[in-house]
């Protein structure tokens, strides 16, 4: 099988996998990185959302070959050691999570949104496609605004 090399959460990794294997299964089944969750496999639930070169993407619909030589960040790579990312802090402050299964993807989506749009409006937040079956949406909205406000206060 072909060898693929990319940066995963700050460290170079090399993995032996077919070119067309979706990155999600490379992460979960070959590398033991289970923060990104399977929820649909076709990019519509967005539970696996992570970052590719700092941009939001869905590893369930992106081949490992596509990630060759690039930088992949999953939820596991978001905090700086024990210091949580401000969006993770906001998630805890607003007690967003319920079952928690979609939240790694929600947080990675929110981080990407705030990079593009530091002070998002409700209409900006409405563009988020990630499903939360527990219905934590209002707290997600609140947490994104809180993280945005915290960043502007700094």
């Amino acid at each position, binding site marked *: 099988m072909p060898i693929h090399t990319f940066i995963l959460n700050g460290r170079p990794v090399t993995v032996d996998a077919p070119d067309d294997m979706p990155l999600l299964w490379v992460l979960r089944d070959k590398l033991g990185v289970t923060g990104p*969750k399977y929820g649909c496999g076709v990019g519509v639930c967005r539970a696996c959302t992570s970052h590719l070169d700092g941009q939001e993407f869905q590893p369930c619909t992106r081949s490992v070959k596509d990630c060759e030589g690039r930088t992949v960040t999953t939820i596991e790579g978001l905090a700086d050691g024990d210091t949580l990312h401000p969006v993770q802090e906001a998630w805890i402050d607003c007690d967003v999570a319920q079952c928690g299964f979609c939240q790694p993807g929600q947080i990675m989506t929110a981080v990407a949104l705030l990079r593009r749009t530091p002070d998002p409006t409700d209409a900006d937040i409405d563009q988020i496609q990630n499903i939360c079956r527990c219905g934590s949406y209002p707290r997600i909205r609140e947490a994104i605004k809180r993280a945005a406000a915290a960043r502007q206060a700094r």
Partner: protein
Amino acid sequence: MPARSGAVSARRVPPISTSDAPSDSTGHPDEAAGPASAEATGRRRFLTYLLAAPTLTVAARLGLDAAAPATAQAAVRAAAAAQDASAPPQPLGLPGIPDVLDLGDAMILAGLPTSHLLVLEITPAGRAALHLPRLEVGQGLTTAIAMLVAEELDAELTDVDVPLSDGRPELLFNQLTGGSNSVRSLYDPVRAAAAAARARLVTAAANRWNVPADTLRTADSAVLAPDGRRLGYGELAADAAAVALPAVPGTPKPADQRRLVGKPTGRIDARDIVTGRAEYAGDLRIPGAVPTVVARPTTINGTLKSLDASAARAMPGVLAVVQIPSGVAVLAETFDQALKARDALRTTWNPGPVADLSTADIQARLRAAHAPFLLPPLLTQYLDAEFDFAFVNHAPMEVLTAVADVRPGRAELWFAAQSPIIAQQTIAAELGLPQHAVTVHVVRGGGSFGRRLFFDAALEAAQISKAAGRPVKLMWTRNDDMRHGRMRPASHHRIRATYGLGQVLNWEHRAATVRTDLGHGLGEALTGAGFNLSLAGLSLAQAFFLLTEKNPYNVGIPTQLLAELPLAVHTGSWRSVYSGTVRVADEITMDELARRMGQDELDFRRARLRDVAGKALLDTVATAGDWGRAMPPGQAQGIGYHDENGGRVAYLVELDASDRANPRVTKAVIAADVGQVINPRGLEAQLTGALIDGISVILQAGNHIDNGAVREGSYADFHYARQRNTPPVVEIHLMPPSGAPGGAGELGVPAASAAVANAYARATGTSPRSFPINF
């Protein structure tokens, strides 16, 4: 007293305090456990009587009709005579069975004989572990239980762990997570266990210091002496295990001494979740468990006709292909390889038993399943309304996943189980093993909404592991779960409300539903609680229906009948079960009847609501939500009310339907009273989630059946709400705590659904009859 080496295990020690015990609705464990107790026996007799009550209700209904129209006229005259211009009192009204005894009470009764088997452990490291015989699926139960333990133990919340217990068959009916019953059933035993443990720790410290125990106090996971000496619970754990008779009372605190219960508290697992460390079944690293998927029939309950697996077996990474009753399993080194090999299987399938049925056929059969209405009395008016509700998949975020390791003579499983004991029994029987040879490890679940009452995936995983002779990690794809998973059954409702001179004289509700599969241990529990279903002439579903469904208003004499359509499709309880459709249909009809009778929808309810606390909720949402405010064309407010499981809630929503294809709830005001609240934040999350469920099932999310197959395949066409479908403003008002805790996990769904439907009707001037509206 059972004790573990180096630790104290406090089990429920009678008698518990009655100072803040619930007055009646939760019952008292010890009284009911002891057959000598007059109250318990009386209550059980009462239950039997109540189970027969539907018959009595129907007889009363027949009696009224037989006397009509004279009786009806008399009733109207009596009502008119007593009429208060602003709020006419209802002359006739019967409490529903759930007003007196609900499903949760029945489940608590079933669990009473084993409620003393709850285990709280204090470790030498100073941690308190309450081994929870329930499942956490996002309802916040582990946090609420940790708060109760920390409160009574005077421990730091961060020192409390709430691991989920393996299946424990000795608990009989007391390891079923459902019916919004966990806090209701565990509130007393958990507090009692923690208070008993505290008493032993204090006694152990008193012995160590040789001082009177009643001079000591506890705080921050330690026993404190007046002179400032301090012993952490970990240092006392071994000594406390040897305390036979505590020297201080082991009784829970009075409400006014609580420091944690009732305070908004963040989830104990929040940090694990936001860092990706929280583990679900698919994340577990069980040695040798290989990724596994199953090829399934083209129609529901179809069967395999032919299989050629040669190409699939030759594919890279494929480890085995085995046949099981529900399909063909593929085991591979990765899920990607398993999925690709599954696609390469050459299969043909025999059609399933409903392959000739589509949505319209099922709706027609439901319509035909009803018992006919009784003729309305002369000289009264009536309003008829009919409603269709579609099938709705549970669609939890985490697809069904189960790890199974079946060896000769034993089996071990890991999955999110709401009913692990029944799962263990069923899987043992399937594997030909004694029950004790099967271990069920209960793993946190990524949502459930009723889905994980069933253990379909675990049963399959056991079959596959046995056939393949190796451990497997089985995952249903989203498509598997949509097409072959379980659904809230489709239903049809006919309501006839008879009225005259400003009064509602009676209310008939005929519900016809595709049969709900309740085969997950509930029947055993009800039997264990003393219900003789066959003697009462009831099916399990009818008993469930009667224990949960009631009309909360004084609307004359209500009758509610359930007709079930047996159909070979996969169904199951969906958050709020029958109330999710029955009460929504009632609430929509209440609105229509109010308008027909020229009354305000909210005032109309308020005047007829039996529950006084419920009236306060209507008042709260009316004031906070500015009920009746002028809205632009295409927009309107809507209200919904529901009480069940010892809780009650009102929703007021504002909805913008100016684009009918994309209606949006723009604001929600919620008021709830569920008795004693353990964690207001957890309760708010439940009420919010119920709102999103209501938006989804009323406006946009459901499942079609096309020739015996489910049409929808993922969240791309099963339109559960996304961020853009939800209100930017959600305001929640919680009433001051009173009495025992009620159940809150399912409470909000009927009221929220009704509020959304009623707002849509008012905004559009239409009478929605089929849900979801945009389907």
